[in-house]
Protein backbone atom coordinates (compact mmCIF):
# COMPACT_ATOMS: atom_id res chain seq x y z
CA UNK A 1 0.00 0.00 0.00
CA UNK A 2 1.25 3.46 -0.88
CA UNK A 3 2.11 5.53 2.17
CA UNK A 4 2.10 9.25 2.86
CA UNK A 5 4.84 10.94 4.88
CA UNK A 6 3.06 13.44 7.12
CA UNK A 7 4.90 15.97 9.29
CA UNK A 8 2.53 17.21 12.01
CA UNK A 9 3.18 20.06 14.45
CA UNK A 10 3.31 18.77 18.03
CA UNK A 11 3.47 21.02 21.06
CA UNK A 12 2.21 24.54 21.63
CA UNK A 13 4.06 27.76 20.73
CA UNK A 14 7.21 25.77 21.28
CA UNK A 15 7.32 22.37 19.70
CA UNK A 16 8.35 20.64 16.52
CA UNK A 17 7.19 18.54 13.62
CA UNK A 18 6.75 14.81 14.12
CA UNK A 19 6.57 12.56 11.08
CA UNK A 20 3.98 9.82 10.65
CA UNK A 21 3.38 7.25 7.93
CA UNK A 22 -0.25 7.17 6.84
CA UNK A 23 -1.81 4.82 4.26
CA UNK A 24 -2.68 6.64 1.04
CA UNK A 25 -6.35 6.07 0.16
CA UNK A 26 -8.58 7.11 -2.72
CA UNK A 27 -10.48 10.40 -2.30
CA UNK A 28 -8.61 11.01 0.94
CA UNK A 29 -8.83 14.46 2.52
CA UNK A 30 -6.20 16.07 4.75
CA UNK A 31 -8.70 15.82 7.61
CA UNK A 32 -8.90 12.06 6.97
CA UNK A 33 -5.12 11.93 7.32
CA UNK A 34 -5.13 13.82 10.64
CA UNK A 35 -8.00 11.66 11.90
CA UNK A 36 -6.10 8.48 10.98
CA UNK A 37 -3.06 9.64 12.93
CA UNK A 38 -5.17 10.48 16.00
CA UNK A 39 -7.24 7.29 15.91
CA UNK A 40 -4.72 4.71 14.73
CA UNK A 41 -1.25 6.00 15.59
CA UNK A 42 -1.17 8.64 18.33
CA UNK A 43 -4.34 9.37 20.35
CA UNK A 44 -2.64 12.29 22.09
CA UNK A 45 -2.81 14.42 18.91
CA UNK A 46 -5.10 17.41 19.40
CA UNK A 47 -7.03 18.86 16.46
CA UNK A 48 -10.40 20.42 15.87
CA UNK A 49 -13.20 19.50 13.49
CA UNK A 50 -16.97 19.18 13.48
CA UNK A 51 -18.96 18.95 10.25
CA UNK A 52 -16.33 17.46 7.88
CA UNK A 53 -18.12 19.00 4.88
CA UNK A 54 -17.03 22.67 4.74
CA UNK A 55 -19.85 24.18 6.75
CA UNK A 56 -18.50 24.79 10.24
CA UNK A 57 -15.01 26.16 9.47
CA UNK A 58 -13.39 24.56 12.51
CA UNK A 59 -10.82 22.31 10.78
CA UNK A 60 -8.68 25.05 9.19
CA UNK A 61 -4.94 24.38 9.41
CA UNK A 62 -1.77 25.20 7.51
CA UNK A 63 -1.23 22.49 4.92
CA UNK A 64 2.14 22.63 3.20
CA UNK A 65 2.43 26.27 4.30
CA UNK A 66 -1.02 27.42 3.19
CA UNK A 67 -4.07 27.92 5.37
CA UNK A 68 -6.89 25.64 4.19
CA UNK A 69 -9.97 23.79 5.33
CA UNK A 70 -8.56 20.30 5.80
CA UNK A 71 -11.97 18.68 5.25
CA UNK A 72 -12.25 20.14 1.74
CA UNK A 73 -8.63 19.63 0.74
CA UNK A 74 -7.94 16.42 -1.13
CA UNK A 75 -4.54 14.89 -0.52
CA UNK A 76 -3.99 14.42 -4.25
CA UNK A 77 -4.15 18.18 -4.76
CA UNK A 78 -1.57 19.12 -2.14
CA UNK A 79 0.72 16.10 -1.80
CA UNK A 80 1.82 15.26 -5.31
CA UNK A 81 5.13 13.95 -3.95
CA UNK A 82 3.48 11.94 -1.18
CA UNK A 83 4.49 14.40 1.57
CA UNK A 84 2.38 16.62 3.77
CA UNK A 85 3.24 19.20 6.40
CA UNK A 86 0.35 20.06 8.70
CA UNK A 87 0.60 22.93 11.18
CA UNK A 88 -1.83 25.05 13.21
CA UNK A 89 -3.14 28.30 11.72
CA UNK A 90 -0.70 31.21 11.80
CA UNK A 91 -1.20 34.46 13.75
CA UNK A 92 -3.11 32.73 16.55
CA UNK A 93 -1.77 31.31 19.83
CA UNK A 94 -1.40 27.54 19.72
CA UNK A 95 -3.15 25.70 22.54
CA UNK A 96 -1.91 22.24 21.61
CA UNK A 97 -0.72 20.61 18.40
CA UNK A 98 -3.14 21.73 15.66
CA UNK A 99 -5.57 23.58 17.92
CA UNK A 100 -5.35 27.38 18.07
CA UNK A 101 -6.98 29.80 20.47
CA UNK A 102 -9.49 31.74 18.34
CA UNK A 103 -10.37 34.19 21.13
CA UNK A 104 -8.56 37.23 19.67
CA UNK A 105 -9.99 36.46 16.24
CA UNK A 106 -13.59 36.66 17.50
CA UNK A 107 -12.86 39.49 19.95
CA UNK A 108 -11.89 41.54 16.93
CA UNK A 109 -15.29 40.90 15.33
CA UNK A 110 -16.80 42.46 18.45
CA UNK A 111 -14.29 45.34 18.32
CA UNK A 112 -15.25 45.98 14.70
CA UNK A 113 -18.88 46.21 15.86
CA UNK A 114 -19.74 43.08 13.94
CA UNK A 115 -23.20 42.90 15.47
CA UNK A 116 -26.40 44.01 13.78
CA UNK A 117 -28.40 46.72 15.53
CA UNK A 118 -31.76 47.54 14.02
CA UNK A 119 -34.46 50.05 14.85
CA UNK A 120 -37.56 47.93 14.18
CA UNK A 121 -39.51 45.86 16.63
CA UNK A 122 -41.49 42.66 16.14
CA UNK A 123 -44.58 44.81 15.67
CA UNK A 124 -43.14 46.55 12.60
CA UNK A 125 -43.47 45.29 9.05
CA UNK A 126 -40.52 43.57 7.35
CA UNK A 127 -37.86 45.85 5.93
CA UNK A 128 -37.82 45.69 2.16
CA UNK A 129 -34.34 45.42 0.68
CA UNK A 130 -34.17 45.17 -3.09
CA UNK A 131 -31.97 42.22 -4.13
CA UNK A 132 -30.40 44.23 -6.94
CA UNK A 133 -29.64 47.34 -4.86
CA UNK A 134 -25.90 48.16 -4.67
CA UNK A 135 -25.86 47.75 -0.88
CA UNK A 136 -27.54 44.35 -1.00
CA UNK A 137 -25.06 43.20 -3.65
CA UNK A 138 -22.15 44.24 -1.41
CA UNK A 139 -23.73 42.29 1.46
CA UNK A 140 -24.23 39.23 -0.75
CA UNK A 141 -20.57 39.27 -1.75
CA UNK A 142 -19.34 39.01 1.83
CA UNK A 143 -22.11 37.47 3.92
CA UNK A 144 -21.16 33.81 3.50
CA UNK A 145 -18.14 34.05 5.83
CA UNK A 146 -18.21 31.24 8.40
CA UNK A 147 -15.34 32.52 10.55
CA UNK A 148 -12.83 29.77 9.83
CA UNK A 149 -9.79 32.03 10.30
CA UNK A 150 -8.06 31.11 7.02
CA UNK A 151 -7.88 34.77 5.93
CA UNK A 152 -6.61 35.84 9.35
CA UNK A 153 -3.86 33.22 9.18
CA UNK A 154 -2.88 34.31 5.66
CA UNK A 155 -2.75 38.05 6.43
CA UNK A 156 0.70 39.68 6.56
CA UNK A 157 -0.64 42.78 8.30
CA UNK A 158 -2.02 40.71 11.21
CA UNK A 159 1.47 39.27 11.56
CA UNK A 160 3.07 42.73 11.63
CA UNK A 161 0.42 44.48 13.71
CA UNK A 162 -1.15 42.15 16.27
CA UNK A 163 -3.90 44.68 17.00
CA UNK A 164 -5.00 44.86 13.34
CA UNK A 165 -8.65 43.81 13.15
CA UNK A 166 -8.02 41.46 10.25
CA UNK A 167 -9.88 40.56 7.06
CA UNK A 168 -12.77 38.58 8.57
CA UNK A 169 -13.81 41.21 11.12
CA UNK A 170 -13.53 43.97 8.53
CA UNK A 171 -15.49 41.93 6.00
CA UNK A 172 -18.21 41.51 8.62
CA UNK A 173 -18.16 45.26 9.31
CA UNK A 174 -18.51 45.92 5.57
CA UNK A 175 -21.58 43.70 5.26
CA UNK A 176 -23.21 45.50 8.19
CA UNK A 177 -22.18 48.90 6.82
CA UNK A 178 -24.22 48.02 3.75
CA UNK A 179 -27.18 46.69 5.71
CA UNK A 180 -29.71 49.48 5.23
CA UNK A 181 -31.55 48.40 8.42
CA UNK A 182 -28.52 48.85 10.67
CA UNK A 183 -28.42 51.95 12.86
CA UNK A 184 -24.76 51.99 14.03
CA UNK A 185 -23.06 52.91 10.77
CA UNK A 186 -20.97 55.81 12.09
CA UNK A 187 -20.01 54.04 15.32
CA UNK A 188 -18.84 51.11 13.24
CA UNK A 189 -16.80 53.33 10.93
CA UNK A 190 -15.10 54.86 13.98
CA UNK A 191 -14.34 51.34 15.22
CA UNK A 192 -12.84 50.11 11.93
CA UNK A 193 -11.02 53.26 10.74
CA UNK A 194 -7.37 54.02 11.30
CA UNK A 195 -4.05 52.34 12.06
CA UNK A 196 -5.46 49.11 13.51
CA UNK A 197 -8.41 49.00 11.13
CA UNK A 198 -9.13 49.11 7.44
CA UNK A 199 -6.51 51.77 6.67
CA UNK A 200 -3.73 49.40 7.73
CA UNK A 201 -4.53 46.96 4.89
CA UNK A 202 -1.74 46.77 2.29
CA UNK A 203 -3.97 45.15 -0.32
CA UNK A 204 -1.73 42.09 -0.56
CA UNK A 205 -4.95 40.14 -1.19
CA UNK A 206 -3.78 36.94 0.50
CA UNK A 207 -7.14 36.84 2.31
CA UNK A 208 -9.05 37.00 -0.96
CA UNK A 209 -6.81 34.41 -2.60
CA UNK A 210 -7.08 31.93 0.27
CA UNK A 211 -10.73 32.32 1.32
CA UNK A 212 -12.38 28.89 0.84
CA UNK A 213 -15.72 30.67 0.30
CA UNK A 214 -14.27 32.83 -2.50
CA UNK A 215 -15.08 35.97 -0.54
CA UNK A 216 -12.83 38.96 -1.28
CA UNK A 217 -12.36 40.78 2.04
CA UNK A 218 -9.95 43.12 0.23
CA UNK A 219 -12.86 44.63 -1.69
CA UNK A 220 -14.85 45.17 1.50
CA UNK A 221 -11.82 46.70 3.22
CA UNK A 222 -11.34 49.09 0.29
CA UNK A 223 -15.01 50.01 0.60
CA UNK A 224 -14.56 50.72 4.30
CA UNK A 225 -11.52 52.89 3.55
CA UNK A 226 -13.59 55.00 1.16
CA UNK A 227 -16.58 55.15 3.49
CA UNK A 228 -14.44 56.16 6.48
CA UNK A 229 -12.58 58.78 4.43
CA UNK A 230 -15.86 60.28 3.22
CA UNK A 231 -17.20 60.29 6.78
CA UNK A 232 -14.00 61.95 8.05
CA UNK A 233 -14.30 64.70 5.43
CA UNK A 234 -17.98 65.18 6.31
CA UNK A 235 -17.07 65.50 9.99
CA UNK A 236 -19.08 62.37 10.89
CA UNK A 237 -16.13 60.43 12.33
Amino acid at each position, binding site marked *: MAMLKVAVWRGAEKGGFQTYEVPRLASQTVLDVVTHIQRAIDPSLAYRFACRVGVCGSCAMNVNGRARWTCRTHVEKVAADGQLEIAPLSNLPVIKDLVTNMEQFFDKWAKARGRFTGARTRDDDFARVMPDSPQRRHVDAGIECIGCGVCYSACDVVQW*KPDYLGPAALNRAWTLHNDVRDTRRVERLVAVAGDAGCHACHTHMSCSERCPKQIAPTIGIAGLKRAA*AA*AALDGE*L
Partner: protein
Amino acid sequence: MSARAQTLLWLAQRASAAVLALCVIVHLATMVYAVRGGLSAAEILSRTRGSYGWFAFYALFVAAVAVHAPIGLRSVIHETLGWRGAPVNAGMLAIGMALALWGLRAVLAVFA
Protein backbone atom coordinates in the same frame (compact mmCIF):
# COMPACT_ATOMS: atom_id res chain seq x y z
CA MET B 1 -4.83 59.82 17.90
CA SER B 2 -8.52 59.77 16.95
CA ALA B 3 -10.00 57.59 14.22
CA ARG B 4 -10.74 60.76 12.28
CA ALA B 5 -7.13 61.97 12.47
CA GLN B 6 -5.80 58.55 11.42
CA THR B 7 -8.23 58.47 8.50
CA LEU B 8 -7.25 61.97 7.40
CA LEU B 9 -3.57 60.97 7.54
CA TRP B 10 -4.38 58.04 5.23
CA LEU B 11 -6.27 60.36 2.92
CA ALA B 12 -3.40 62.86 2.91
CA GLN B 13 -0.96 60.11 1.99
CA ARG B 14 -3.17 58.92 -0.86
CA ALA B 15 -3.68 62.45 -2.18
CA SER B 16 0.03 63.29 -1.92
CA ALA B 17 0.86 60.02 -3.72
CA ALA B 18 -1.34 61.09 -6.63
CA VAL B 19 0.43 64.47 -6.76
CA LEU B 20 3.84 62.77 -6.55
CA ALA B 21 3.02 60.39 -9.40
CA LEU B 22 2.41 63.38 -11.65
CA CYS B 23 5.34 65.44 -10.34
CA VAL B 24 7.86 62.59 -10.72
CA ILE B 25 6.79 62.01 -14.34
CA VAL B 26 7.05 65.72 -15.20
CA HIS B 27 10.36 66.04 -13.35
CA LEU B 28 11.98 63.03 -15.04
CA ALA B 29 10.63 63.91 -18.48
CA THR B 30 11.93 67.48 -18.12
CA MET B 31 15.36 66.27 -16.96
CA VAL B 32 15.70 63.86 -19.87
CA TYR B 33 14.54 66.56 -22.31
CA ALA B 34 16.80 69.25 -20.78
CA VAL B 35 20.02 67.26 -20.89
CA ARG B 36 19.37 65.70 -24.28
CA GLY B 37 20.55 68.80 -26.09
CA GLY B 38 23.51 69.21 -23.73
CA LEU B 39 22.24 72.14 -21.64
CA SER B 40 24.74 73.33 -19.05
CA ALA B 41 23.85 74.01 -15.41
CA ALA B 42 24.03 77.73 -16.11
CA GLU B 43 21.62 77.41 -19.02
CA ILE B 44 19.17 75.41 -16.89
CA LEU B 45 19.40 77.97 -14.10
CA SER B 46 18.72 80.77 -16.56
CA ARG B 47 15.42 79.07 -17.36
CA THR B 48 14.38 78.37 -13.78
CA ARG B 49 15.40 81.69 -12.20
CA GLY B 50 12.43 83.99 -11.98
CA SER B 51 10.08 81.36 -13.40
CA TYR B 52 7.00 81.34 -11.20
CA GLY B 53 5.70 78.28 -13.05
CA TRP B 54 8.72 76.11 -12.13
CA PHE B 55 8.72 77.58 -8.62
CA ALA B 56 5.06 76.59 -8.12
CA PHE B 57 5.66 73.13 -9.61
CA TYR B 58 8.65 72.30 -7.41
CA ALA B 59 7.06 73.88 -4.32
CA LEU B 60 4.10 71.52 -4.86
CA PHE B 61 6.53 68.62 -5.37
CA VAL B 62 8.29 69.39 -2.09
CA ALA B 63 5.00 69.81 -0.23
CA ALA B 64 3.80 66.41 -1.50
CA VAL B 65 7.06 64.76 -0.39
CA ALA B 66 6.87 66.45 3.02
CA VAL B 67 3.35 65.09 3.53
CA HIS B 68 3.82 61.65 1.97
CA ALA B 69 7.15 60.47 3.38
CA PRO B 70 6.56 60.92 7.14
CA ILE B 71 3.10 59.31 7.03
CA GLY B 72 4.51 56.29 5.21
CA LEU B 73 7.54 56.15 7.51
CA ARG B 74 5.19 56.21 10.51
CA SER B 75 3.45 53.09 9.20
CA VAL B 76 6.73 51.36 8.40
CA ILE B 77 8.03 52.07 11.92
CA HIS B 78 4.78 50.83 13.41
CA GLU B 79 4.82 47.59 11.41
CA THR B 80 8.51 46.74 11.63
CA LEU B 81 9.55 48.05 15.06
CA GLY B 82 6.19 48.21 16.82
CA TRP B 83 6.83 51.83 17.88
CA ARG B 84 3.79 54.09 18.04
CA GLY B 85 2.27 56.94 19.96
CA ALA B 86 3.08 60.59 20.57
CA PRO B 87 6.92 60.36 20.39
CA VAL B 88 6.77 58.67 16.97
CA ASN B 89 4.17 61.16 15.74
CA ALA B 90 6.31 64.08 16.94
CA GLY B 91 9.36 62.58 15.23
CA MET B 92 7.46 62.19 11.98
CA LEU B 93 6.22 65.79 12.21
CA ALA B 94 9.83 66.90 12.63
CA ILE B 95 10.92 64.83 9.60
CA GLY B 96 8.08 66.32 7.54
CA MET B 97 9.04 69.85 8.51
CA ALA B 98 12.72 69.19 7.80
CA LEU B 99 11.86 67.80 4.35
CA ALA B 100 9.70 70.84 3.65
CA LEU B 101 12.41 73.29 4.77
CA TRP B 102 15.28 71.59 2.92
CA GLY B 103 13.14 71.11 -0.15
CA LEU B 104 11.96 74.70 -0.28
CA ARG B 105 15.54 75.88 0.28
CA ALA B 106 16.55 73.91 -2.83
CA VAL B 107 13.61 75.29 -4.79
CA LEU B 108 14.50 78.85 -3.80
CA ALA B 109 18.12 78.21 -4.79
CA VAL B 110 17.13 77.60 -8.42
CA PHE B 111 14.42 80.29 -8.44
CA ALA B 112 15.96 83.33 -6.77
